[in-house]
C-alpha cells in the first residue's frame, strides 16, 4: 500500500481526468433530503453533507434489473443475443464509504459460489472503488461490531481521508487503484510524514461481538425471539434493496410478440412471494419466519457456507425501515 497527499486543486484535476478518460463515474448526489449514487459529470454535483446514501452502491455490479439475453424469432429462425461483456462501461464509484467497499467481498463470494457469474464478474472487473473514510457516523452505524471500521480499507481500490485543508490523504491499495492514480499522476504529492489518519475518523462504538451472535444463532431457529422481534415488520423489501450485501434475485421473462428478454432483477426474502410454491404452500408463511431467515442468512448461513458475514454495519436497512426495525438493536438484544 502506498500513501500520497492530494490537494483540493489536485482532487479537482484528478476527477476531471477520470471523466475525460471516458469512464462512467458514480457518486453520491443529493435529491431533497436523500443522497444516492448517480452518474455525475463534475465534482460540484457530489454531495458532502450526509452520513450515508439511502442505497448502497451494489447496483453498479448487480443492477436492479439486467438483461441476461434477448431473442427474436423471424421466419422460423430464433436468434439469441447473449449478454455482451463489451457493453459494460469502465466505471468508477466515487466516495463510497468503507462499509460499502467491504460489501463487495460477500457479494463476490455469493456470485462465485459454485458458479462464476459472468455478468457480475464483468461489472466487478470494470469497476474501481474509490472510498472515503468516514468522519461522521450516526446511531445507525455499527461497522466496528462487524469487523469493519470508519477507516477500513478492505475492498477499496483507493481510500481517501479528507483533510481540513480540503485535500486528502490517499491510500493506494490495488493495481486498479494505481491505474486510476496514473490518469493524473502529477496531482499526487508525497504524504506529510506526521499525518495520522486515525484522528480524522468517526467514533463508532462496538455494540456486540460477532462471534457471540453467531454462537447464539446456532440453536436459535425455534426460538420465540423471531416472533417478538418481527411483530412490527411490515414485510416490504426496503431493507434488502438498500443493503450492500443482499443478493437475492428473481429471473423474469419480458416477451413481446416474437421477441423478448430474460431479465434478472432484485428480489427479497422479506416478500411472501419469495418462497411461495406452485402448489400454494409457503414454507415461510408468516413474517416472523422471513425475519428469521434474514438474520440467520447474514449471521449464520453465510459464515457457515462461504466463511463471510452478510452485514457490513452500514445501518441502511434500519434507516430505510418504515417501522424502525433497527438491526443493530435486534442483534444486540440477542446476546444481552
Amino acid at each position: 500500500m502506498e500513501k500520497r497527499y492530494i490537494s483540493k486543486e489536485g482532487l479537482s484535476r484528478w476527477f476531471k481526468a477520470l471523466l475525460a478518460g471516458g469512464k462512467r463515474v458514480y457518486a453520491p448526489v443529493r435529491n431533497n433530503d436523500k443522497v444516492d449514487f448517480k452518474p455525475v459529470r463534475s465534482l460540484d454535483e457530489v454531495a458532502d453533507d450526509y452520513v450515508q446514501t439511502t442505497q448502497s452502491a451494489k447496483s453498479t455490479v448487480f443492477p436492479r434489473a439486467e438483461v441476461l439475453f434477448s431473442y427474436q424469432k423471424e421466419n422460423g429462425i430464433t436468434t439469441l443475443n447473449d449478454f455482451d461483456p463489451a457493453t459494460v462501461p469502465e466505471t468508477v464509484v466515487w466516495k463510497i464509504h468503507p462499509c460499502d467497499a467491504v460489501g463487495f467481498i460477500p457479494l463476490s463470494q455469493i456470485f462465485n459460489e459454485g458458479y462464476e457469474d459472468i455478468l457480475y464478474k464483468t461489472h466487478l472487473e470494470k469497476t474501481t472503488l474509490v472510498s472515503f473514510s468516514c468522519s461522521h457516523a450516526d446511531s445507525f452505524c455499527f461497522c466496528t461490531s462487524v469487523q469493519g471500521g470508519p477507516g477500513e480499507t478492505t475492498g477499496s481500490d483507493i481510500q481517501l481521508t479528507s483533510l481540513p485543508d480540503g485535500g486528502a490523504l490517499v491510500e493506494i491499495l490495488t493495481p486498479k487503484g494505481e491505474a486510476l492514480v496514473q490518469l493524473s499522476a502529477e496531482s499526487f504529492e508525497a504524504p506529510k510524514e506526521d499525518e495520522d489518519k486515525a484522528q480524522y475518523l468517526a467514533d463508532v462504538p462496538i455494540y456486540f461481538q460477532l462471534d457471540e451472535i453467531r454462537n447464539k444463532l446456532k440453536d436459535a431457529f425455534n426460538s420465540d425471539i423471531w416472533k417478538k422481534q418481527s411483530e412490527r415488520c411490515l414485510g416490504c423489501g426496503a431493507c434488502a434493496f438498500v443493503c450492500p450485501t443482499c443478493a437475492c434475485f428473481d429471473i423474469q421473462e419480458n416477451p413481446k410478440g416474437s421477441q423478448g428478454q430474460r431479465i434478472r432483477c432484485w428480489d427479497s426474502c422479506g416478500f411472501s412471494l419469495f418462497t411461495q410454491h406452485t402448489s400454494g404452500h409457503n414454507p415461510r408463511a408468516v413474517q416472523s419466519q422471513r425475519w428469521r431467515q434474514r438474520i440467520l442468512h447474514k449471521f449464520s448461513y453465510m459464515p457457515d457456507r462461504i466463511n463471510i458475514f452478510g452485514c457490513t454495519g452500514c445501518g441502511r436497512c434500519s434507516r430505510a425501515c418504515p417501522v424502525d426495525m433497527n438491526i443493530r438493536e435486534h442483534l444486540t438484544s440477542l446476546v444481552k
Partner: protein
Amino acid sequence: MNKIAEKAVALLQEGHTLVLGYEEGDRAPRPFFCRQAEEAQHLVLDERCTANLAVYLTKPELMGKGRVAVFAITSSLRAIAQLTAENQLQLENLTILTLTAEQEIKTFATLEEIRSYLSEVPYELSDTEKALDEKLSAMTREERWKYWINEFSRCIKCYACRAACPMCYCTRCITEVNRPQWISPWPSPLPNMEWQINRVMHLVGRCIGCGACGRACPVGIPVDYLSKKMLQDLSEEFGYVPGQAMQDGNALSTFKPDDKENFIH
C-alpha cells in the same frame, strides 16, 4: 407510570391479549406490541406518533384469537372506520382508544362514536403538501408527466408503500399475479408508474389520507400525494368528505343516478 401505561395494564388485566401502541424508537415512536403488563411502561402516545397502527389489525397471525386493544391516533381511527365499513374488522373483538386534544383517554364503543369523533377533526393537507399541490397544479400536463417519470425512475419496487398502507390488505396483490403479469416485477420508470396508478386507483374512495405510503418510501417519492389528490377529486365529483369513512359504498363501485359524470368526455 404514565396514564397510557396504566390503562394498558388495566386492559391486559381485563383479559386483552394484546395492546397495540407505540414505544420510543430511534427517530420517532414506533409501533409496539404490548402483551405483558411489565412491558406497558414502554408505551408512549403523543404527537410524534405517526405510524398507522390499523395496518396490523388485518393480519390474523399478529392479532391472534384474543381481544385486542389499540391506541389509535386520528389517522388510525380513520382507517379503522374505513376497514370496518369494508367488513375487514370485527369491532366487537377490538377495544379502540385515543388520546383526545384534552389529553384524556377516550374509549370508543361503536363505529358511530368513532365517526362522530372524526367529524370534529378536520382533514387538512400539511404546508409541504399544499406547496407540492400548488407546484404540480401550475405545471402543464407534459411537465407533470416528466415530473412523475423522473420521480418514479428512483422507485426500487420495494413495495413499502403497499406494506405500510392500512387499506392494502389483499391477501394476493395484483403485483403477485403472474398469469398474466400485470405489473412488471423489475423496476423501470413506466412500469413503476403503472404500479402506482394501480395502487392509487385501488384506493380511490378508500384512502384515508394518512400518508403512511409516502413516509414509508425509502427513496423519498411523494407517492402519498397521488392518493391525496384523488381525495380532492372525489370530494369535488362525489361529495366525499376526506377523512370520513364511506357510509354508502365506494365511489368507484357504487352507482348513483345523480352522479355528475362531468368527467366523461
